């Protein structure tokens, strides 16, 4: 994205937001995500307006093209596609955000410890990060998704429930999504560790915990936010692929990915079933990637050319 000077100096508390809004990518990302999130939140309202719900099966009205009662048509069981998209979006966004937050927490912990402790710990943790990055992700995700939770000692009725299917996918995706955050958090910690204010804090007798929590984390926060935003896109993609393969979100719950599972067989009869869920995944991931790019430009002083 183009790097432009902000037309006027951003002042005070809104500086970050203003800087973000002056990047075309940040603006576009916010707009895309805002539209999608608002629509998904408004799902019950849309359901009321249409006078139906996403679970009502009507086999006589299956695979219908768009009509006034079903603005985007119906799926293979005659359920309203628009409502299923909106409710499915809630699941996709929720799992994506939760997994990204979990991944960010894990990555921050690993990165900050590696950068702060240094030495062998650092070498080990970074080799670990490189190793995870190098692994063929999807095949391993499939193995994890196929693991029988009951064999891990969890109660059988919990293991087969929807909550478990969401939590499982969140955990799995987070286990692989932390690497970018860890790298950036480590880099930020390394440079902050040697700064005068950290030395001063240490000279005053601050404990390592205090130095990390009070002096290093706030300084590393912008890198962490950028890396997290950029990784949400990948996390949502990973969830959608697993759900598409039938290993992620399980029915009766639906996510955009799982809505595409049967779309391929029906691609001749009902191409719109293949079109919409994928388009929403694409728009959401693109939104997060653009937002991340905008944030990076707004928060990274080296890439910001205008006065701040």
């Amino acid at each position, binding site marked *: *994205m*183009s*790097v*432009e000077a902000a037309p006027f100096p951003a002042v005070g508390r809104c500086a970050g937001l203003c800087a973000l809004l002056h990047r*075309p*990518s940040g603006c576009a990302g916010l707009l895309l995500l805002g539209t999608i999130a608002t629509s998904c939140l408004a799902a019950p309202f849309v359901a009321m307006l249409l006078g139906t719900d996403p679970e009502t099966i009507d086999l006589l009205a299956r695979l219908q093209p768009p009509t006034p009662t079903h603005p985007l048509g119906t799926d293979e069981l005659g359920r309203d596609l628009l409502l299923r998209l909106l409710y499915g979006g809630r699941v996709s966004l929720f799992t994506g955000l939760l997994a990204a937050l979990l991944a960010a927490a894990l990555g921050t912990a690993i990165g900050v410890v590696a950068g702060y402790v240094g030495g062998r710990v650092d070498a080990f943790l970074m*080799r670990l990060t490189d*190793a995870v*990055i*190098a*692994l*063929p*992700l*999807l*095949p*391993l995700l*499939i*193995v*994890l998704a*196929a*693991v*029988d939770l*009951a*064999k*891990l000692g969890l109660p059988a009725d919990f293991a087969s429930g929807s909550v478990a299917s969401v939590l499982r996918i969140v955990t799995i995706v987070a286990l692989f999504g932390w690497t970018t955050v860890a790298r950036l958090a480590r880099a930020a910690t390394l440079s902050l560790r040697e700064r005068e204010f950290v030395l001063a804090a240490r000279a005053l007798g601050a404990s390592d915990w205090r130095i990390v929590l009070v002096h290093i984390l706030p300084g590393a926060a912008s890198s962490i936010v950028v890396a997290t935003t950029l990784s949400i*896109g990948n996390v949502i*993609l990973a969830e*959608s*692929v697993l759900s*598409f*393969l039938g290993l992620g979100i399980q029915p009766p719950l639906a996510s955009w*990915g799982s809505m*595409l599972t049967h*779309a*391929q067989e029906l*691609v*001749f009869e009902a*191409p719109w079933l*293949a*079109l919409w*869920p*994928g*388009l929403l*995944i*694409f728009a959401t*991931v*693109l939104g997060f*990637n*653009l937002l991340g*790019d905008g944030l990076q430009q707004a928060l990274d002083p080296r890439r910001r050319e205008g006065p701040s």
Partner: protein
Amino acid sequence: MRRVVARRAFETAILLLVVSFAIYALIGLMPGDPIDLMISADPRVTSADAARLKALYGLDRPLVERYGRWLASALTGDFGYSRLYGQPVVAVLLPRLFNTLLLMGPSLILALALALPAGVLCALRPASRLDATLNLLAFAGFSLPSFWLALLLILLFSVVLGWLPAGGVASPDGGDLLDRARHAVLPVLTLTLLTAGSFLRFVRAALLETLSDDYVRTARAKGCGLRRVVLVHALPNAALPIVTVVALHMGTLLSGALVVETVFAWPGTGRLVYDAILGNDYNLALAALMLATLLTLSANFLADLLYLRLDPRIREGV
């Protein structure tokens, strides 16, 4: 330099070992085991028989011991029999590996052929309209869900236009080389579009970083043209991070291949992993996953070697 190589080889081997153990342990946690499958296939099997069978196959032994035995025979090249295909695992895997490489090779080359010139163009005129457009396309490229892109291409080229087949490696009557190539177009195109975007971003970033170096300014000050500076001075140096990124992308490419192979019914390794895991074919799943891991890790190892060759600073151990 030899010491560095030896250390990296050692680390790669250790990592492979750790991953193989993790996969072995995880596969044991999947629903059903071989004896369960025998029981469901034959109603006369009693629980006493099942216990006896478990002891016979060593399935009652501790995990570490079972893993040790698997590893010992795997090291001699014996990965056991595939339950789904009734053939030795190696005989199932090798033709599939060839099919996967048939997808990955051309798409890797095509993606680089697209991304290199585009990335250079972007880096030459950062913040221009061209740069913004190409960047947006790149963002779109790596934001696309792989399976959806595959579906869209099928929708466009097979359903609407009817130009290309929607799946498989060849027509039912065998098919000549042209027919096989026609079947490969859509899968290769999907993989290419998925990877070209991030390659472009990396080429651009690497080149921009290099272009701000002192020696580039010196070359410019001597009166060197921009084109010459980029192609002769900057690009070879920017090649280092690009090589790394491409090698690190082997895993992503393999993951993409898995999805593409599933959607296009292309009999490759990725699809095999999926089928083997869902079909409770333990031996096959293990071997296929190990092969996938080996493939990406050796790509990384090769990248390290290349890095050593390209960068004298590392070679001299500075």
